[in-house]
């Protein structure tokens, strides 16, 4: 059983590594993300959000959905720890 788990892990890892071969090179200016997404944020974020810090604008506005579920992940971690560990009734 342990050998099976090891084989499954290695196979998944190899597939993931194989998949990264198709990614654009790191920092490639011709990659799809760099040609319109990043440029769009840099050009319009300050006028659209009046927030000089582009990171805050992307995190809190353009990708607010992502940030919300980041908070939910932390919340679920806390609830999980309370549910598993707590031994007192209030």
């Amino acid at each position: 059983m342990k050998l099976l788990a090891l084989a499954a892990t290695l196979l998944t890892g190899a597939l993931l590594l194989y998949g990264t071969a198709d990614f654009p090179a790191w920092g490639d200016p011709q990659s799809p993300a760099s040609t319109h997404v990043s440029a769009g944020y840099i050009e319009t974020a300050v006028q659209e959000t009046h927030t000089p810090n582009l990171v805050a604008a992307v995190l809190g506005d353009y990708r607010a959905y992502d940030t919300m579920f980041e908070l939910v992940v932390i919340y679920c971690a806390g609830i999980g720890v309370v549910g598993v560990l707590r031994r007192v009734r209030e």
Partner: protein
Amino acid sequence: MKRLQEQARSGNLGEDLIIRTAVRIMVPFIQLFSLYVLAHGHYSPGGGFQGGVLLGASFLLMALAFDLKSSKELFPPKVIMASSNVGVLIFAGIGVVCALLGGYFMDYAAFAKVIPLAVPDWRSLGILLVEVGVQIGVACIMLVLYWELSSAGTLEEGL
């Protein structure tokens, strides 16, 4: 000297006067700095997650320097659990209110229909409102995680 030895043996290093006084002085500044990190997130690196961790760490420092009981008296576990819910609800609630006002989910520009402010100003303000929710949620969860893990779930005696 004898008392110090007894304290060291019983593991109550937090009873030490130097530690208690230093923590008493440091905690308000850490909390003020956490609010600064939250409020200044629009202009410099910062925001709800970082500010929340700082705020939670200040409470955690108090729980370390004193004991878990005094920390629990300051913040009853029920209140902490309720406010971590409130933190998440503020974030999700703002998104839902935006949707109810006729915009997209999390489209802060929808608030401009209720309170007349320029749309970019509402987007800036919306980020701040949401970060307040993040701050409350992260700070409370940090404290709860410390309580649970340090006392193995009994909430009686910490580290």
